[in-house]
């Protein structure tokens, strides 16, 4: 996020797109609700689903799944045509504006309406609200609904273009604010667990950065970027990757085209999985190493607003399990000895000492240490030195790259569109009571009883055609596989679209999803794929689930 979570309350207008905030980030949603109810902020929601926030919204744009570039470009065009752009900001702080402006010609409200299914009048209302916030600025909030498309990077560029054309960057109550899905996904990226960068996004193929790390670590380092997770699966399938070490991840449920993932992991010569439970992925391993939960170790997490906070050990490790940092160190030392490398590179007295090492090598974390966090509670990076107070708002006065770059974009349809065989669109997401692949939440009895099974959401119109009602078991099939689950007939989900979560191993939505990748981010398009739904004969609604037969004459 360019702005802190608390800043959402300061916004004069909030534009929530591709985020079901109340379910996936409930405490961030609190700020949005407060901004609207207590501070009189305007709320625009763009989501194919009628999410809870849509009820609170001044304008709800129900775009078709995968049409976000058209929608966002369309809004930008209206803002330009109506003279609502922030001319001064565009002139002082951005570049490539004219080329981008020219690229918007085809995104007339009528065209956009035809592509997205959003009425023209709503486009105008949304554009005017966004460009004229009541106070402070307008804040865009998005999540995986923007990024998990084969055009995910384009979607993000479109969001940035919209923020820049209205000058909503680098000030209170404004910004481009992606909500990250996991407690420390921001931190894992910051720490260089990506194939092309060291910590703090220092490129592995940058000679200076490479030299710095080689000197600090005392080893030769590879300069060519490595493989992303989807590419690893591909390479493993092709036999180029023969061994994998997976720590605290469950790709069997979280990655698209799950059957393919399982088959590929089975083919490996050697798989070591480090986790706290015997997950679906761990079951495929040759060796399973027991790590510990967040409650049994010290360290730091970095949240979605770049805030680094201390994680403190509350319990001793359970059984013979070991804090993950100690396991990595033990393994690294064992291999270093075999290879004749310096094993003392992995001798650390505590996580605080690890933080000290990484802070020395990472400019944005330079001023962060456990001792300082004990004192000040939390710090938002960039925090380059020990006297720096941290940076709540990014790009104030100047973009980190200098000038903000407008990126012309073309609209591209989702990689897999519905057809005669697979006539419906499947989109996926989370629900409030579960988390990700359910490894943790499905072991909490209360949460499990609140949401014990998958419920595929189907619009009443489609349900009637399919002769399906709430509580029926249905088969959902795509080109990659099929799953069964109970149906929930609801108009929360639009006509032609079905919705599933990916929390349930027994109805794993990712068996169905598409692996089409965004060319730049390598993000798979799990938000859109074509499926076919049919009622499984012999199951009667209500017989065991207490559902009612709605939508049937």
């Amino acid at each position, binding site marked *: 996020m360019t702005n802190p979570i608390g800043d959402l309350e300061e916004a004069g207008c909030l534009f929530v797109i591709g985020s079901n905030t109340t379910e996936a980030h409930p405490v961030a949603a*609190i700020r949005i609700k407060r901004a609207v109810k207590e501070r009189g902020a305007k709320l625009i929601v763009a989501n194919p689903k009628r999410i809870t926030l849509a009820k609170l919204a001044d304008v709800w744009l129900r775009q078709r799944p995968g049409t976000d570039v058209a929608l966002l470009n369309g809004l930008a065009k209206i803002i330009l045509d109506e003279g609502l752009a922030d001319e001064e900001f565009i002139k002082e702080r951005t570049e490539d504006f004219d080329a981008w402006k020219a690229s918007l010609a085809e995104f007339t409200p009528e065209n956009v309406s035809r592509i997205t299914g959003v009425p023209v009048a709503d486009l105008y209302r949304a554009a005017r609200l966004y460009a004229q916030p009541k106070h402070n600025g307008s804040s865009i909030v998005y999540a995986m609904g923007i990024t998990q498309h084969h055009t995910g990077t384009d979607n993000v560029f479109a969001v940035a273009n919209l923020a820049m054309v209205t000058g909503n960057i680098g000030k209170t109550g404004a910004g481009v604010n992606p909500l990250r*899905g996991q*407690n420390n996904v921001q931190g894992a990226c910051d720490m260089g667990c990506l194939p092309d960068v060291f910590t703090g996004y220092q490129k592995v193929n940058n000679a200076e950065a490479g030299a710095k790390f080689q000197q600090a670590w005392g080893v030769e380092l590879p300069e060519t970027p490595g493989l992303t997770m989807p590419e690893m699966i591909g390479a493993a399938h092709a036999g180029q990757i023969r061994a994998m070490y997976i720590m605290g991840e469950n790709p069997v449920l979280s990655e698209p085209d799950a059957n393919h993932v399982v088959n590929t992991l089975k083919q490996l010569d050697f798989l070591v999985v480090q986790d706290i439970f015997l997950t679906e992925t761990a079951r495929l391993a040759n060796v399973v190493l027991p790590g510990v939960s967040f409650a049994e170790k010290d360290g730091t997490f970095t949240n979605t607003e770049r805030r680094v906070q201390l994680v403190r050990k509350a319990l001793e490790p359970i059984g013979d399990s070991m804090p993950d940092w100690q396991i990595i160190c033990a393994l690294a030392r064992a291999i270093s000895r075999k290879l004749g490398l310096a094993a003392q590179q992995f001798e650390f007295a505590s996580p605080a000492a690890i933080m000290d090492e990484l802070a020395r090598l990472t400019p944005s974390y330079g001023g962060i240490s456990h001792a300082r966090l004990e004192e000040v509670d939390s710090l938002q990076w960039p925090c380059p030195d020990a006297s720096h107070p941290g940076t709540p708002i990014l790009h104030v006065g100047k973009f980190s790259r200098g000038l903000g770059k407008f990126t012309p974009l073309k609209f591209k349809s989702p990689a897999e569109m519905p057809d005669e065989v697979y006539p419906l669109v499947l989109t996926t997401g989370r629900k409030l009571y579960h988390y990700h692949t359910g490894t943790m939440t499905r072991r909490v009895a209360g949460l499990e009883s609140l949401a014990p099974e998958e419920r595929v959401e189907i619009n009443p119109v489609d349900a009637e055609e399919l002769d399906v009602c709430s509580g029926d078991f249905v088969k959902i099939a795509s080109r990659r596989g099929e799953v069964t689950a109970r149906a929930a007939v609801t108009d929360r989900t639009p006509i032609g679209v079905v919705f599933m979560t990916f929390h349930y191993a027994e109805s794993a939505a990712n068996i169905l999803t598409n692996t089409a990748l965004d060319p730049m981010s390598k993000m798979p398009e799990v938000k859109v794929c074509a499926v076919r739904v049919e009622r499984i004969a012999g199951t009667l609604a209500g017989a065991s689930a207490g559902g009612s037969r709605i939508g049937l004459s």
Partner: protein
Amino acid sequence: MGKITLKFNDKEVQGESGMTVLEVARSGGLYIPTLCAEPDLKPYGGCRLCLVEIEKMRGLLTACTTPARDGMIVKLDTPYVQRIRRQVVELIVSDHPSDCLMCPRDPHCPRFNVCLRDDVVSPRCVVCPRNGTCELQQIVEFVGLKEMRYRLAHRETDLDTSNHFFYRDHDKCILCTRCVRVCEEVQGVAAIDLGYRGRHARIVTALDGPLAGSNCESCGQCMARCPVGAIVVKNYRGEPQREVKTVCPYCGVGCSLYLQIKDEKIIGVRGDRAGAANRGSLCVKGQFGHEFVNHADRLTTPLIKKNGEFVEADWHEAIELVATKLVENRGKFAGLSSAKCTNEENYLFQKFARGVMGTNNVDHCART
């Protein structure tokens, strides 16, 4: 925002214009008893405990709703204030199960003691989970209430046990509406409100159905705010022996919270009011989703697959085997780190992949 100065009894306290009398008093470290006021909720003036006298103003005023003005002279404990406040407490207690409240033996009674003064089994403080942490008990002690002049008129006991994590005991509710206000003002859910009138008044859901059938999201913030034992966690395991401040392990918001520990188990969670991201709020997962930590399924020892079956192994054997296999496959290796693990662990993981395994094939689930 101008500075203002108020005088409480003989003490001068500085505040900002826009604050209430209660806020100024609290900022100066003065105690005014309250049951309904919460720093982050709107002034409500419901419990009438914060009554004070203010010079040049008529009658008694509730400090929580009275805007502070420069030069105010506030009397906190005149005989008049004390008398009326005691009467207010008496009225609140009159329909609260409080047989122990004024009993001189109370400090000596352990939980589940049979009471020799009580000829029937009645709901008493010693069997209430909030005994000892109850704010009403503290207030009764503060105002020095020694006897009750009003007959206890208990409301019929009807527990709402429909929620999976906590129950509501209307009999113990003092109608301070902190739960109603936190649900609406802070969490933005508005699942409950004050219903009915007079002595039938109670906290209800829409159409007065059970909580589980309402739009309640089970975040438990009502429970966290309840000053008495009216909303209590199910399977209460006593008071924590210690609290450890840490960060929620679920989504990316990064809510700061305290894990409450007893006998090396997590028995509860308390949102951190000073938490920059959450200011004390939590969702259902953050408040109640930590059972997995002590779950019986937890892996407690390394496992090695032999002939298709996992066999328990010791650390030395497991690490040696992994090391040997990874050395064999150096050059054909890829590693997936974890968005659930700490920064320090992620740093080590990529250092291991790059520095030891000699590959940039390192990633994590940032895309899912």
